[in-house]
């Protein structure tokens, strides 16, 4: 058993670390939501974060792209290193961070006043980046292809974003996030509002996307983590309990709490 764990940690060390959280804590006012998290997300790998409701998974992930502080009264302490640079260093512009670390949310939110193609290009257009028509169309097509949505919408790019089904809207949000060419993609329970078929499509998408991006997936669905993630981290009441290869976490967890959660004794 020790042997397997040693092998796992050596494999982990070998992977290039794209995003690293060090002594990361987050607060809502006086309440501390996550405590002293140390976690490394290797490049081109899907890392899942699992745990019962309220354990701080969403909070953790929102700290990774400085979205946590958007809420009034919320703050984070510690470091998050993107390619070695701390995104929480003084003087760092959170807006720039979010262009390199993208996010897809639980609820699909296409911008209601925009068409499908405008939605995809929104990240560029809203930032005043002027693109000529052909270039913009190329970006829209590329992003929609990456999100596996191109074939379904290529005939109706001018239609409103809200005219798509739930699963399509979520893939539109993925395309929109990809259009600004982030390096990391954070996904906060992206399938929990979707039906099983759309969920399966998004999971397929994850496996395709990891070749080009680093993906962090928050999910309350353990089977989803087992299906899609290479690495899994288990969070409980704000603490990181265990982190390792998915296979090892699910078949041979090192900690009692992990085993209790996996086997369904709580949460």
């Amino acid at each position, binding site marked *: 058993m020790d042997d397997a764990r040693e092998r796992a940690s050596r494999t982990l060390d070998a992977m290039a670390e794209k995003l690293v959280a060090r002594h990361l804590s987050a607060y809502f006012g006086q309440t501390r939501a996550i405590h002293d998290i140390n976690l490394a997300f290797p490049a081109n790998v899907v890392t899942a974060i699992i745990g019962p409701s309220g354990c701080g998974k969403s909070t953790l992930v929102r700290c990774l792209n400085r979205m946590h502080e958007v809420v009034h009264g919320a703050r984070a302490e510690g470091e998050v290193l993107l390619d070695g640079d701390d995104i929480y260093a003084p003087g760092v512009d959170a807006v*720039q961070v979010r262009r390199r670390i993208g996010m897809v*949310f639980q609820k699909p*939110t296409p*911008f209601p006043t925009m068409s499908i193609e405008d939605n995809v290009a929104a990240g560029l257009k*809203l930032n005043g980046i002027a693109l000529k028509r052909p270039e913009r169309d190329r970006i829209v097509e590329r992003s929609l292809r990456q999100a596996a949505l191109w074939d379904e919408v290529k005939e109706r790019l001018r239609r409103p974003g809200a005219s798509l089904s739930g699963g399509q809207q979520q893939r539109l949000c993925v395309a929109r996030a990809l259009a600004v060419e982030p390096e990391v993609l954070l996904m906060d329970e992206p399938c929990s509002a979707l039906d099983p078929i759309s969920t399966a499509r998004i999971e397929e998408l994850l496996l395709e996307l990891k070749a080009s991006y680093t993906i962090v997936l928050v999910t309350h669905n353990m089977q989803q983590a087992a299906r899609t993630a290479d690495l899994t981290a288990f969070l409980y009441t704000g603490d990181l309990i265990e982190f390792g290869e998915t296979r090892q976490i699910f078949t041979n967890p090192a900690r009692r709490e992990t085993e209790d959660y996996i086997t369904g004794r709580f949460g």
Partner: protein
Amino acid sequence: MTAKSTAHSRRTTWRKAKSDVMMGVAVLATVITLLPLFIILTYLVLKGASSLNLAFFTHMPAPVGEKGGGMANAIVGTLELIGLASLMGVPVGIGSGLYLAAHHGSRFASAARFGADVMMGVPSIVVGIFAYAVVVRPMGGFSTLAGAVALAVIMIPLVTRTTEEMLLLVPHELREAALALGVPGWRTTLWVVARTAASGIATGAILAIARIAGETAPLLFTAFGNRFWATSLTSPIASLTVQVYTYAISPFPDWQRQAWAGALVLTTIVLALELGVRWMTRGSARVAR
């Protein structure tokens, strides 16, 4: 049937009857309340429509006691006043609404919101006194500007509150999605949140315009009134509301006839704005009062 159950069913019948009567009273109250609406509109048309001719819309008032003349200067005056007031009041109102929605939790914002609510409770005649003190007295006379300032002061809290409420109705997930794309805060507020709420904000502004179009009291000693065209921003100006008021309380039957016509025009403008706005936003969320 036992005696007890007979008594019971008699009591139930009595209770049901009482309930029906009370509900009937409620319906009666509704009818009585709505009756004046139809009566007034009918009287406006009956007594005013016959006086609406081209002369009414193109001529100035005739000298005192003479027949004829029109309300051209009053109609244009009202348009000028609400135009000028909107120019001042709408940007301040929308800007304040944007600030209050963006800084929703801060103590200053709560104080400012409270201030806007308080402003809505100021009687319009008192607003007129304020405009008199800060515009008419320093300028040495009644003026279009003073009237517009008074109307703008009435408009601002209305536009502020409806703008803020419409902005807050936009789901916060939309704002977060834009921020997560790396769009700066101010661009998100303008091009995503405000754009989504745009029709609601416009509705609020138009309803505020409809409200000030019908105001009389604050104009009585600010814009005052004018028998002729207003030559500049610093001269007094006629308005439909003040003109109707002046004619209505006068002893001249010809003026009284014109008062009805003016009232019909005024009511048509105001109701057209109200109805138009509601028709355009049918199905959307209710606009704040």
